């Protein structure tokens, strides 16, 4: 399986293209992940879109689509503050965020920013969420 960076460098010669990398572990892409990808492509016309379903690392049933991390690289972010960029992403995914998606980690970069550091960050480990038994007060 080609690494994201190698894929990116191969495709950059072909001009703008959407490089989507789905969930590494789960294999099949679920409907929520597919919807997120489609909506972000339509709303932001990204040069790069890396989306990872991180639900497997959280206290939710197998096959869940509740926790995601996304890196969106789009020239539409030029001149926008981080808050404005995140709000654009949220707006595109309002149905998902009102529904199944509990957590969405966002990296919203301009093309120049992405070239400086072209990788999806990692999320911190789950600390149990609301299901964790409370410790001593």
């Amino acid at each position, binding site marked *: 399986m080609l690494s994201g960076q190698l894929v990116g460098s191969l495709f950059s010669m072909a001009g703008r293209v959407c490089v989507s990398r789905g969930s590494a572990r789960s294999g099949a892409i679920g409907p929520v992940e597919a919807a997120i990808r489609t909506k972000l492509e339509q709303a932001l016309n990204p040069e790069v879109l890396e989306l990872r379903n991180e639900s497997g690392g959280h206290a939710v049933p197998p096959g869940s689509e509740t926790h995601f991390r996304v890196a969106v690289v789009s020239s539409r972010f030029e001149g926008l503050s*981080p*808050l404005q960029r*995140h709000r654009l992403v949220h707006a595109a995914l309002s149905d998902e*965020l009102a529904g199944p998606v509990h*957590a969405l*980690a966002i990296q919203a970069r301009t093309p120049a920013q992405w070239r400086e550091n072209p990788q999806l960050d990692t999320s*911190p480990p789950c*600390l149990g*969420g609301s299901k*964790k038994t409370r410790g001593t007060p």
Partner: protein
Amino acid sequence: MSGSLGRAAAALLCWGHSAGGGLWGPGVRAASSGGSGSSEHLDMLVKKDRVVVFLKGPPEQPQCGFSNTVVQILRLHSIRDYAVYNVLDDPQLQQGIKAYSNWPTIPQVYLNSEFVGGCDILLQMHQNGDLVEELKKLGIRSTLLDEKKDQDSK
């Protein structure tokens, strides 16, 4: 970001080791019952203190990795006196703050009554030095500002 700040950040944000504070006591304000999700109530909460965060879990034992990141960042800057509201204790608060901020997730950070963002944005501000500057404007001296000045003067 200078090397020492980066190293300090890496040490304390080492995911496997950080598990909330406990060494300090932030001014944890409990959200009152009844109307805790109302915009009037939330308006009051975000204006009452200069630094206000809404978390999943208490700051000494966050129950979400992203909420923990916020706690750790504030700890790195030695910010001790800030308001923390645990949304897991109050579903009305959890829903209310999402509507009030027009932001779909927790954690949420307010500085000087203004919504700043969630974990990703606070982390970005911490890494690029913006957080130190924003705290300075609020009259809060981050200990990382002193470190930065030491670095700059060498």
